[in-house]
């Protein structure tokens, strides 16, 4: 009557096989979607079901990308935008956390500026572009600032409320050992809010892309946002769509990186 270990193992192998089969089926479907999307696009464009001028076509886009990869210019644009995005992201996140720490340290200050924070937060930051140009001049600084400003307030608010949400009992433990305010922050508040801080990263990386692209729309000579604007200006939708695709891919990669970081840090 006793089940031999080999049957346990066999059942497990069967289970693994089922999993693998399912995974393969999912990948096949993903490929089907991918292939049919692009071939439908190509076909519609060739058969003029859609206006090839406005919607270009996958072959045109890949030709363009190939040409731009051969002369290396696309990498320059990608590099510029990536650097700006990372800089904007870091700046926004770090500033936001510092601001949140300041608010935590001075609870009265936080009560005083609360309504102003609400207004600043609700403000659609993309409308501030021109003011940033006035303040920082037309150049990289403005673009990076745009990438940062879009995330700093929301980071402040989220991280500050994480600080406030830390279980009072951790603080009690520390105070029972005679800890001072700085020690409480360092030993309990900050590490306990770590998961929230990491999860704002995920939001901020997306926001920084928005900020940087909008910034590049306003001032730039290089970068993927510039390519989009320039493409529109000379009515080259192939260039526009190619840039959009590159943006989508890199934004997705960056997002995945941050997500992987999150999983790693929060688990460990």
């Amino acid at each position, binding site marked *: 009557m006793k089940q031999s270990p080999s049957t346990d193992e066999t059942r497990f192998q069967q289970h693994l096989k089922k999993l693998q089969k399912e995974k393969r089926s999912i990948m096949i479907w993903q490929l089907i979607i991918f292939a049919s999307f692009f071939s439908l696009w190509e076909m519609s464009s060739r058969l003029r079901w859609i206006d090839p001028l406005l919607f270009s076509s996958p072959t045109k886009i890949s030709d363009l990308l190939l040409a731009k990869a051969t002369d290396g210019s696309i990498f320059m644009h990608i590099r510029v935008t990536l650097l700006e995005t990372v800089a904007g992201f870091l700046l926004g996140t770090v500033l936001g956390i510092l601001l949140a720490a300041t608010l935590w340290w001075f609870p009265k200050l936080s009560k005083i500026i609360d309504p102003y924070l609400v207004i600043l937060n609700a403000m659609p930051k993309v409308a501030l572009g021109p003011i940033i140009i006035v303040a920082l001049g037309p150049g990289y600084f403005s673009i990076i600032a745009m990438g940062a400003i879009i995330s700093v307030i929301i980071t402040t608010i989220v991280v500050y409320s994480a600080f406030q949400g830390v*279980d009072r*009992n*951790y603080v*009690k*433990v*520390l*105070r*029972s*050992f*005679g*800890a001072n305010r700085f*020690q409480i922050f360092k*030993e*309990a508040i900050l*590490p*306990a809010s*770590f998961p929230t801080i990491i999860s704002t990263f995920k939001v901020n990386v997306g926001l920084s892309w928005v900020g940087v692209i909008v910034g590049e729309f306003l001032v730039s000579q290089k970068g993927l946002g510039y390519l989009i604007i320039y493409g529109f200006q000379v009515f080259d939708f192939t260039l526009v769509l190619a840039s959009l695709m590159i943006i989508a891919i890199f934004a997705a990669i960056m997002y995945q990186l941050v997500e992987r970081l999150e999983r790693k840090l929060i688990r460990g």
Partner: protein
Amino acid sequence: MTFLSLNHITHQYFSKQGFTKAIEDVSLSIEEGQFVSFLGPSGCGKTTLLSIIAGLLTPTEGTVTIQQQPRSQTNIGYMLQQDYLFPWKTIQENVLLGPHIQGNITEMKKEKAIQILEEIGLESVVKSYPSQLSGGMRQRAALARTLMTDPKLLLLDEPFSALDYQTKLKLENLVSQMLKQYRKTSLLVTHDIGEAIAMSDTVYVLKARPGRIAKTFQVPGHLRTLTPFETRQHADFNDLFQTIWKELDQLETESIN
């Protein structure tokens, strides 16, 4: 000699709408080396009382003195209602938290930590994180953390409530033995009548709304020398249990009406 004395402690919690009177006019004194328990329904102010004794809360009225001096914080060890180990620190780091905060981590302290962890059977998980431990192990680690700063007075807030029955009985034995060994003065808060009888010299039964001392029971001397597990099996245990049970039951009925 009186070690700890509470003089007419009253505490109110304020909110915008009104106030809750958590405890009212509680006075008592505890001798050095004594083990005292507080029994009472939920919300009768047990945690509030411990927080006041620990100096984490200033009572709206009354004073606390320890050895005739106003209370100084660092010679009190306070073990909260749950373990509150810091999940981002290893067990060793958690246990060394007190010395770390007080800025005096020495080799000696580290050795002492290892020694305490060995005594309570946690030597194998020194480098583990709290999430890798079972509930009982976590409670033991929290106890070790509390003992590290060598407090003269120990405050234990339902240290065993989150445990299953067997683990709880074992840990009661361990704690009782350790406290006797280190000659600590201890205050235990619990919901469990059996636990209170099994561990303490004196049992204070509190009533709620507002929290007051309703009755005091002395545990007979011959029970005190037994381990908690043995006490629970002792014939006299049941009598005391019944008495306290009825007292509590009556308090509850009163408070409902």
